[in-house]
């Protein structure tokens, strides 16, 4: 390379460097602002969980006295919070479990076995993406009543599983199709049964996609207020979003306790989300199937 070339290149690099710098800076500013906007309500929720009603109304954004745990004590002793939490974990956990198991099995069959109507089956699942289940609440209610499932947690699990399957089948079918077929053939030559291939080869490799499916189903199911409201009457079967409404009285609401309850309700799902995202990112970077 000649000296002229070198200097010209350096100049070009500087110019583009400056451009990249301003671009980067703008992006960073935007992202930071966005983070702030997103986190601010959550922060207010957490802070107000440590305040009394009076404190909340006089200084909603001030830092509280973190030693004041009376709201949390009130929740633990004076409400069915723990019961609601347990119900939510049960319903969400089982729903996600069913979604992943059934969705992955359906996706594996659609992606790998040539059978009549496999394309139609995939279309059928995908069509589910276009139907908002809430529109079908009245037929669903009648169905649950006729099946005798009203006022059971199983009704919720059924609806959530049905709700989650279309997107899961869609994601998993696409992903399994990208896995090299030779791997399954190799396992077949190793003497593995179809079930063993699924469990020992496909499932571990499909984990990143399963994490995506889990993440994108987790929050809506955990937060869902609508279906429990319609299906569940019994106090001891209520899930968190539904249960927390009992904290809001008709005439006066203890906002401090409500915020504390919300904080506690959001905490587990946030943690799970963080763990799963990390899994997902690990899966993405270490995937390297070839």
């Amino acid at each position, binding site marked *: 390379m000649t000296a002229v070339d070198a200097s010209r290149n350096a100049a070009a690099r500087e110019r583009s460097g400056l451009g990249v710098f301003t671009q980067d800076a703008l992006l960073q500013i935007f992202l930071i602002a966005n983070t702030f906007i997103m986190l601010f309500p959550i922060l207010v929720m957490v802070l107000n969980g440590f305040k009394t009603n009076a404190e909340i109304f006089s200084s909603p954004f001030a830092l509280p006295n973190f030693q004041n745990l009376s709201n949390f004590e009130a929740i633990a002793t004076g409400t069915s919070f723990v019961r609601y939490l347990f119900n939510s974990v049960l319903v969400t956990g089982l729903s996600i479990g069913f979604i992943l198991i059934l969705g992955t099995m359906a996706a594996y069959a659609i992606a790998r076995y040539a059978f009549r109507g496999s394309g139609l089956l995939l279309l059928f699942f995908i069509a589910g993406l276009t139907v908002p289940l809430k529109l079908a609440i009245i037929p669903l209610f009648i169905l649950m009543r006729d099946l005798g499932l009203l006022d059971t947690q199983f009704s919720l699990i059924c609806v959530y599983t049905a709700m989650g399957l279309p997107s899961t089948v869609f994601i998993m079918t696409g992903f399994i199709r990208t896995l*090299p077929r030779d791997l399954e*053939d*190799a*396992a077949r*030559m*190793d003497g593995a049964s179809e079930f063993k291939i699924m469990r020992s*080869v496909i499932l571990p490799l499909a984990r990143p996609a399963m994490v995506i499916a889990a993440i994108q189903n987790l929050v809506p199911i955990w937060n869902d207020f609508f279906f429990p409201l319609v299906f569940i009457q019994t106090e001891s079967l209520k899930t968190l979003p539904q249960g927390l409404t009992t904290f809001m009285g008709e005439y006066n609401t203890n906002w401090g306790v409500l915020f504390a309850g919300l904080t506690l309700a959001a905490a587990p799902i946030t943690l799970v989300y963080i763990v799963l995202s990390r899994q997902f990112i690990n899966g993405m970077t270490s*995937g390297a199937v070839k």
Partner: protein
Amino acid sequence: MATLSLDKVSKRFGETEVLHGIDLEIADQEFVVFVGPSGCGKSTLLRLIAGLEPISGGTLRVNDADMTRVPPARRDIAMVFQSYALYPHMDVYENMAFGVRILGLTKDEIDGRVHEAARMLQLEPLLKRKPRELSGGQRQRVAIGRAITRKPKVFLLDEPLSNLDAALRSQVRLEIARLHREIGGTMIYVTHDQIEAMTLADKIVVMNEGRIEQVGSPRELYETPANAFVGTFIGSPKMTLVTARREGRRFSLSDGGAIEADAPADAKGDVMLGMRPDALTLTRDRTAEGFEAETVYTEYLGNEAYAYVRLADGTMAAVAVPPNEDYGPDEPVRVQARSGMLHFFDPESGRRLRHGSLADERGDFNRVEQARR
């Protein structure tokens, strides 16, 4: 102990038949190599033997037991894939142990087998690594190790070396030959590479368009190709084919000179001549007997050299020349044949025409017929 026998095995994908009635006998402990141009059905045939694709017609027997409809898990056959197909989420040890575990052996036996294979393939230091942390050659060895831990009756290898660089390829080739000696077993090996085929095979199966063209030892295929296809496919540089008119011992190209050769009894009228580079010589003497030709370019390889010449009918012919002789482009030359080294084919069917006595011819003919059947 495993002999394989294929009887009129055919394969259809939907409407298209890609293998047409393959007949083949493979003896115990034999090293068989399938060669043929791309798309001729080598991999498909291998997958039929493995059981990964259903056989459309005919029967496959292993040790006289009908295996046509038996699933791969119960055929006792192992396969090494071109893409290696190592399980990415398992380390080397687990990859090699996967199949043995399914056999239901005890922990000690599994451990013993994996370590035995690892030692044989020099994989011991790598047992705890994941496939992505291995080089291409190491992955290849793990893939082979995974096949041998199950101690199968038959090994199938589909172009196992094609992803390796040249130096590594010849090294792993030697290892495969050594492994075959050490562990025995019947091996079926698919390759594009002639050197692999010639050096490894007890028996080469030349395929073309879903049919077997010839089966034989490397020497048989090279010295007595059953037809023009096999003649041009085996040997490098390629055999040159020209159609010449026969008058007694003279074979002439129209306006292109003639050569003299001992002709087989059944060569009449037009004959297709198969000329390997070492069966031909060049001379600059333009008055000499021989095919008229013009040099096009020369390939100098150090210990040998090939001149490529254009004959009067436009055919390009490769001629082995002494490396110390230089030919420029566009030199007029004469191409002569060494006696007894030409191959003669029927210009219509491409079938080999025979030298020598009638009895010999019959014997040869029967052998070829058998190979074709």
